[in-house]
């Protein structure tokens, strides 16, 4: 670990320690925040006891669906837009402006249409994640160096083989960025909808705990949620880093 990495670790640990002290001495009232050590203990306890198992499965399954649909849908959309010049000319400006509108605003409408179940939640999450994946797919395909395709032709590679042996690997870094974003946004989409209105799920339980002043449960669940998200992101980032290391000097 570099010197700077140690300093970063120090900052994070230091912040945690300061928070712990402030909570324990009562500067931060218990009603607002419990000490970080108790947060971790509560998280561990929830995990061990399987207290909210059903909700975890619900949320994780929704996130999985959302990731799958965002990645597949985003990839196909990006591929279609890239291949059809008319689509590209028409849609490209909209794609870049897509992030201007927070998809969450459509949630009420979807609830009224589909009812209060996982469908509106997954739809919102896909609305968050599909477009970044599409944009990165287009970018990735666009940036394939033309000489690679020439090499393919020089080796008499068939069109289908070219896609799998040359184009997809060449676009892989960008596709990977798209997948990372899709994962991130899927988590955000699912959890935020659960916060707003939901019958079950981690977000719902956190919201419920908040309403009932159950800080132990609330902070425990928040820690677990952060842990899951961090785990997902770190894994993706690790593989992305390894890929990039091979590719660049």
């Amino acid at each position, binding site marked *: 670990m570099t010197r700077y990495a140690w300093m970063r670790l120090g900052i994070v640990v230091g912040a945690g320690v300061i928070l712990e002290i402030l909570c324990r001495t009562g500067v931060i009232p218990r009603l607002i925040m419990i000490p970080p050590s108790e947060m971790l203990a509560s998280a561990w306890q929830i995990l061990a006891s399987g207290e909210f198992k059903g909700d975890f499965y619900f949320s994780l399954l929704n996130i999985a669906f959302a990731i799958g649909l965002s990645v597949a849908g985003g990839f196909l959309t990006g591929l279609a837009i890239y291949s059809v010049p008319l689509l590209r000319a028409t849609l490209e400006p909209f794609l870049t402006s897509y992030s201007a509108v927070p998809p969450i605003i459509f949630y009420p409408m979807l609830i009224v249409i589909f009812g209060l179940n996982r469908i509106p939640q997954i739809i919102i999450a896909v609305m968050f994640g599909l477009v970044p994946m599409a944009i990165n797919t287009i970018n990735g395909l666009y940036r394939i160096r033309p000489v690679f395709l020439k090499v393919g032709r020089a080796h008499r590679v068939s069109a289908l083989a070219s896609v799998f042996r040359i184009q997809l690997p060449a676009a892989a870094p960008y596709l990977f960025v798209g997948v990372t974003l899709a994962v991130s946004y899927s988590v955000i989409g699912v959890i935020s909808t659960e916060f707003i209105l939901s019958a079950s799920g981690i977000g719902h339980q956190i919201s419920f705990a908040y309403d009932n002043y159950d800080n132990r449960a609330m902070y425990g669940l928040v820690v677990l949620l952060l842990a899951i998200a961090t785990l997902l992101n770190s894994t993706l980032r690790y593989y992305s880093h390894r890929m990039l290391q091979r*590719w660049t000097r």
Partner: protein
Amino acid sequence: MPDATRTVHARVEGVTRIYPGRSGQPPVNALGPIDLDLYKGEFLSIVGPSGCGKSTFLELLAGLAEPTAGTIEFEGRAVRGQVPEGVGVVFQEDSSFPWLTVWDNVAFGLENEGVDPAETKRRTDFAVGFMGLTDFAKSYPAQLSGGMRQRVCIARTLVLQPRLILLDEPFAALDQQTRLLMGDELLRLWRETGATILLITHALDEAAMLSDRVAAMSARPGRLLEIIPTGWPAERDSRIVEDARFGTITARLWTILRDESMKAIGRTESRESA
């Protein structure tokens, strides 16, 4: 090969390449008409000013592009629309696949053709060794220097045992000393495989020292102005520059091409001011 048996390996007749003009612009006559006979086993270079169409010519010969007029033949069969079996191409830019190791890069063509693993391993190991890459077989191209990466590309082409190898300014991105050494490598490759080699380059000295014949191409639209036989022995390397004839040949090339190069620049200038 020592005395090139004068069989024609590839023939180009009356070939032109005209690019249709973009909205409102007149069509661009990039190349031609060109007539050229490539003899089996010879080492031929084409030199010419920038933009004269040398690369276009190579792509036409390789089957990567189609001529607007004229015929191209390789080993008696017409070249149309796809790269014929037996032809290998090395491009100007580094085209090694960054996502594959050196070994996998070289094996690419064989694996694509479904050659069985044992045979693939044998031929790939050989090509990797031939180009001096054995120690780097498990490395990724990004970890290698420019010269090494070009060697990977050459090995990748070699492994398919091409009978005609087309190289488009393969050493353009390298420094002069590396270029000279790579030139020697190319000669060694040529002698040991017996392939016909067509080298496109803008470096007159490189063409003069490496080739059996040097063709000088005019400014756009590129036509072959003169083909100079060098008469070098097959067992040659970069030290051929000591031979007095080297200076004569290079001087002759420059005499032909100096005017053409000025035309190329002059044309660029007038286009910019238009």
